[in-house]
């Protein structure tokens, strides 16, 4: 069964460093998402991406964050200068095309990357 994969599973970085979290969505999916879950808190939406551009982003997704689909398979989240409060589990998700040019309701999630900023 196709699945979303994410690498690395765990990343430790120092404050101020740049990190890139990588995701390989399901191959025929067209809509891509990043969410994060700070320990003990809710899963929060960060950004959605379609047709090579951001379609929606949350207040959390400020200028230090960026997303990219550098080739036909990968989807990346870059954090330019990490802060202690960026420590969280980051989930990538993807969804297929639905009807009427809209995304399907279901989103399929990867296993997550645990980012620890020290």
């Amino acid at each position, binding site marked *: 069964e196709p699945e979303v994969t994410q690498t690395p599973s765990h990343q430790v970085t120092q404050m101020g460093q740049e990190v890139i979290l990588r995701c390989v969505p399901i191959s025929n999916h067209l809509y891509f998402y990043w969410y994060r879950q700070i320990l003990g808190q809710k899963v929060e939406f960060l950004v959605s991406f379609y047709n090579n551009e951001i379609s929606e982003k949350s207040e959390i997704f400020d200028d230090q964050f960026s997303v990219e689909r550098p080739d036909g398979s990968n989807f990346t989240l870059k954090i330019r200068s990490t802060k202690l409060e960026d420590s969280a589990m980051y989930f990538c*998700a993807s969804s297929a095309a639905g009807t009427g040019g809209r995304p399907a309701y279901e989103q399929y999630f990867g*296993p997550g990357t645990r980012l620890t900023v020290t």
Partner: protein
Amino acid sequence: AQSVTQLDSHVSVSEGTPVLLRCNYSSSYSPSLFWYVQHPNKGLQLLLKYTSAATLVKGINGFEAEFKKSETSFHLTKPSAHMSDAAEYFCVVTGGVLTGGGNKLTFGTGTQLKVEL
């Protein structure tokens, strides 16, 4: 704006007894609702979805949920719990008005289900 409230942060049941995980939603539009499950050190797995068709929705592993508009609820049930059901369960809502560029999911705070022998 949309939101979900999971009424119990922890639920403990004995193996073989029924499971009830409660969720209430708030949405300006007709919502789509989901339950996701997260086993330890695993990703989020879709259990079931409601998207304005039948109000009683069946999912994987014997779980089901009923959409009740009058009560703004979408509770998750299973007739008989199994040890392997122990996990965290998330009630999730997305807006009824879909944009062309993607659907933002709004998660509840999660319910940790413990299954005892």
